[in-house]
């Protein structure tokens, strides 16, 4: 094994560790900030760690339609998100470059959504199935947005390599190309949907369908799902930052990681504010909204192809 491969693997592992450590912290920040917006004191910052630990120590009731599939869905979802973590740049550039390219990243992200759907299907109660249904609909209309954003980047840099695409590639062609700016806008307004927070947490709406697909899960399985949810927040923020806010690298790895995480934190703050001040949309409204965005992004794609 060459030294380069070892560095890549080490970099990927470092990413996984960062995500595992930082994800609950970001969630804690989110909850604390939400509380302060609502004039409350709020939970301690490390509350999500407590929650996860407690869930790990609880009894695991296997009650759904097919327990093996439920177990599989949990591990699949967790594994997929951790693999994604290997591929996303925290710091200077994407570490596990030779493992996969942008397309693999997109597949893996889709796999996360599919795992959630599987979880809902395996649980098999009415509300889980409704949640699964909604998850599927949003997956199908939402995921293309990310694809288009990445593809625009890839067009600009003429490559699908991770380290080239996930480094502000959308602006690569000529300063600030129109397509990149349009995609920035589109991704900004749809970011809430990717991380599945209010107003787009339709598939997991607590007051409507009681966390939908996750309703039947308890104990360690729920802990893993919650972890995945928290990790999604970090990873999508990291992706967004890598694609659209690539500036401010120093070249020093630890410092770069901190800078990157700080940028992610800013994204989380934005997510918090939007989540705190919005009412949940209905599925059809959300789908209509995604479709509009998809239309705009396709136009952006066309512009990118012609070099704008």
């Amino acid at each position: 094994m060459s030294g380069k491969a070892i560095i890549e693997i080490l970099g990927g592992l470092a990413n996984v560790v960062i995500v595992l450590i930082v994800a609950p912290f970001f969630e804690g920040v989110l909850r604390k900030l939400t509380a302060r917006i609502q004039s409350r004191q709020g939970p301690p910052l490390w509350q999500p760690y407590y929650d996860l630990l407690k869930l790990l120590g609880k009894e695991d009731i296997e009650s759904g339609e097919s327990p093996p599939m439920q177990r599989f869905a949990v591990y699949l979802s967790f594994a997929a998100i951790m693999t994604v973590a290997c591929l996303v740049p925290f710091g200077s550039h994407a570490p596990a470059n030779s493992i996969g390219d942008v397309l693999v990243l997109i597949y893996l992200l889709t796999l996360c959504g599919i795992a959630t759907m599987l979880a809902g299907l395996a649980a098999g109660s009415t509300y889980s199935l409704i949640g699964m249904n909604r998850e599927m609909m949003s997956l199908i209309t939402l995921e293309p947005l990310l694809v288009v954003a990445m593809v625009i980047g890839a067009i600009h840099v003429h490559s699908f390599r991770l380290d080239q695409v996930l480094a502000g590639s959308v602006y690569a062609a000529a300063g600030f190309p129109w397509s990149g700016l349009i995609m920035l806008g589109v991704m900004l307004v749809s970011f809430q949907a990717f991380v599945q927070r209010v107003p787009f947490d339709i598939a997991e709406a607590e007051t409507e369908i009681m966390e939908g697909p996750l309703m039947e899960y308890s104990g360690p399985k729920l802990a893993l799902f919650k972890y995945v949810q928290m990790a999604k927040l970090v990873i999508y923020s990291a992706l967004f930052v890598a694609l659209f806010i690539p500036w401010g690298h120093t070249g020093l790895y630890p410092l770069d990681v901190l800078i990157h995480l700080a940028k992610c934190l800013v994204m989380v703050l934005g997510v918090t504010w939007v989540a705190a001040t919005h009412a949940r949309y209905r599925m059809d409204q959300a789908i209509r909204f995604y479709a509009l965005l998809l239309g705009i992004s396709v136009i952006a794609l066309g512009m990118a192809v012609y070099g704008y």
Partner: protein
Amino acid sequence: MPAHKIIERLKDQFGVAIQRADLPGNGRLFVFVDSAALKSICRFVFRDLDARYVTSIGSDDRPYSDSFLVAHHFAFDRTGLLCSLLTHLTGNPPKVDSISKEVPAANWAEREFRDLLGIEPVGHPYPKRLVLPDGWPEGKHPLRKDVAWNYVPEGYDEDREFAFDEPPEGCMVIPFGPFHPTLDEPAHFRLYVEGEMVRGCEYRGFMAHRGIEKLGESVLTYNEIPMAAERICGICGCVHNVAYAQAVEQAAAIKPPPRAEYIRTIMLELERLHSHLLWVGLACHIVGFDTLFMLSFRIREPLMWMAEKISGNRKTYALCLIGGVRWDFTAELKAELQQVLLKVEQEWRAVVEAVAGDRNLQKRTLGIGVTSPELVKNVGLIGPVARAAGVDIDCRRDHPYAAYDRVEFKVITGTGGDVWSRLLVRAQEVFESIRIIRQCLEKMPEGPLQLQLPDELPIGRMGMSSVEAPRGEAHHFVITGENNRPRRWRVRAPTYQNLQGIPAMIKDQQLADMTISLGSIDPCFSCTDRMEIVDIRSGKTTVYTQEELREMARRKVL
């Protein structure tokens, strides 16, 4: 239309079928009619005289007159008259003509006396069990006088399941409740859903039926019942408390001292304030808007503290006794209340202004759960639900009680009839309530709080009282009796009527709108159920098979 005119018209129309009419004064009318003509008289009153249906009451009168009693209550809102059409039933088992076909709003009330008293409404379109628990055997009726309050019949079977109707063709069934995060109280809806569209529902509620009426008729005494009445509902408890006290006072021809009336008015409005703020919070919580939920609860909290200072408890004020109130206002309390009101008014005005332009919130509420004035009339919807549909009814103005005839206020009406206009109506009513309290504080006369009552209240007299609860009109009916307790006490809570409008409201709507539509009537199941959806979501109730669902999901996506 004044009372004597109504009697004249009834006499013209029905002649000897009108047996007797009592006019105890101050806007009450009791007409005893022949049971055979009851149905046509009800239709005449409801359709031709354009009265509003209030409720139907069954009573076991056998120990006193060897017959059962059925009363249909109507309200003439323009003239401020509450009218009761009573009839005695001698048959065994007792039978009465159902009026549900003519007056759709009477549906539940008739099913209720069928359950609890065994009075059979002949020709009822949907004679299904409503109130009693699933395992209760047929033919046993807890509200009859020969049955003790704690009597559980022999054939009680805990495991019996409720027989739900068959869902319509092509629809899947989604159980909603009894424990659901948007429902504070147990109730069970079976939604018939086609895709994400709700096509219909069946309600199996009355899960909080605690037998309060039976308790009041057989165990508690006149002055204990206010405390029980208050616990009919934890949010609008004071309303029931006052309504009960007023019904008894009216039956016994007692007039409470004016200071007591003003204090009742203030506490009722204080309750309306906190209830409306609470509703706005809960409605926002249902659509996932937690900041506004927290905000309105924060604004509401000083009101709760104020209530605690005045009455000693945050919710259950234990305010009324027969002939007066228990808690007085001191000068300090008055000043403090003024300050709290000022603060609430300022903050709430800012919130209302901010929310008025909130497109995001409007998206979830505009055009959702629409009610038309026809539906309001037919199903007997009341309170903010009716007012939001443009029907101008308000018991405070139409049937003035306590000190409402001495204060000025505006009845807020909306136009849309949807959730958004209900929200606006409630938000505006907060300001009116504040205005009423201020006027009361200003005008409150000095004087005693409580009357010295005679040893025994008159026996066999009837009284009814309508009080405008935050959710609509709460109606209490009392027949006074021996042993220092009423012979019959019937409560009609506002949600009892409003809930009957839900199937029409949620029909052909998105599943996601179901919760907010239901929330928008400010449902209070405990009120409704006083004295009854049965599947917990974790229990596996896949009514249709999983393949079907998968198939459905696939069809949806492709």
